[in-house]
């Protein structure tokens, strides 16, 4: 089986501006990488490249099984949390196991008691955790987390770190873009500087 994520000499352009080029990254099973850098340097773009939402102008992106935690939760606001997650879990495969996977994921982000509450009633932090539960329930090998700690309280951040550790020990890989320092033992540090700074 190939690695969960391979980036080969990737260049990314947004709005006619080159964000980065010649970018290489390889995450094997159990590995994690943390992307840091100032605002607008292309952290989210890197994650969207890995998710297949942006096409690289050069290079190659290989990520066979991936799940993205983006800015928006992508959960139907009028549905109960459990049913909104179930929709995605069913798209992600095993119809029968989907219900169990959602229940397990909700328990993992400590939202098990809110499974029947409509998504629209959730707070910002709860919604963030719900989106994380969608990633957990996906069963994808590669997690792409864009600012996962946004809006989370201290306990939830600790739970996020534990979830990432559990996913890695289970053979998964994680790519995280974050401003908040997270405790991720022996994660690769990736710093995006932008082409202007790099050429100086």
């Amino acid at each position, binding site marked *: 089986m190939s690695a969960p994520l391979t980036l080969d000499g990737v260049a990314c352009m947004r709005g006619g501006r080159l964000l980065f080029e010649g970018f290489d990254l390889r995450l094997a099973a159990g590995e994690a990488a943390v992307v840091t850098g100032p605002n607008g340097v292309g952290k989210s773009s890197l994650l*969207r490249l890995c998710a*297949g939402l942006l096409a690289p102008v050069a290079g190659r992106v290989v990520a066979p099984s991936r*799940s*993205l935690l983006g800015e*928006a939760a992508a959960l139907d606001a009028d549905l109960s949390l459990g049913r909104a997650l179930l*929709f995605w879990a*069913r*798209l*992600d495969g095993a119809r029968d196991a989907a219900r169990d996977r959602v229940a397990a994921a909700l328990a993992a982000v400590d939202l098990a008691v809110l499974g029947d509450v409509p998504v629209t009633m959730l707070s910002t932090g709860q919604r963030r955790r719900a989106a994380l539960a969608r990633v957990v329930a996906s069963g994808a090998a590669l997690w792409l987390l864009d600012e996962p700690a946004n809006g989370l309280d201290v306990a939830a951040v600790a739970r996020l770190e534990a979830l990432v550790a559990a996913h890695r020990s289970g053979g998964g890989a994680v790519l995280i873009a974050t401003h908040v320092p997270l405790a991720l033992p022996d994660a690769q540090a990736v710093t995006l500087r932008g082409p202007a700074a790099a050429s100086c």
Partner: protein
Amino acid sequence: MLIALVARDVRRGYAGGGATLVVIFFLLVATLFPFAIGPDAALLARIGGGVIWAAALLAALLPVERLVAPDLEQGVFDQLATRGLSMALVAAGRTVAHWLCFAPPLMAAAVAAAGLLGLPGALLWRVELGLLIGTPALAALAVAVAALTAGFRGAGALAGLLMLPLAVPLLIFGAGALAGGGVGAFKLLAATSLLLVAGSPFVAGAAIRAGMD
């Protein structure tokens, strides 16, 4: 997978009360004509079929703003694309779902509108057959225009400007089929409808893709 997507969109279509809105708007437009023209039964019966077609076209504009923009904002398309789904396929699924939400209520309402306008029964059948053939194209156009205008300010007004000219052939052949005679107009209506249904998902898919950049 596509069935799950269509089921979700159909549920959202009916849950949002969108179908009721379309029906009420359609009947409202249809009743405007008798008020404007006066209670001349013979005249109304003669123009009634065309009135129903024009009202259907206007009613088709109503749901455009809800078809693509909310999901684009919510990152639903991002999630679908991350799973490797083609956006054209997703748009095709959305077209099917929109048709299921939009055409049956509209065709039912057309019966009521025909009653209001005093349309003879034979003509009603021709209207219904025409709507059955033409509404898939209206649904496909609505999805494509919704994808093209998603994220713009004043998307609703822009959608009208984009969609109505494209729907004119449907109106011509749909209303033309009412004049009686052979099945020629129905065949032309079906050809136009097929073209729009086949082409629109690719336009919508490309527009959604472009919106992710």
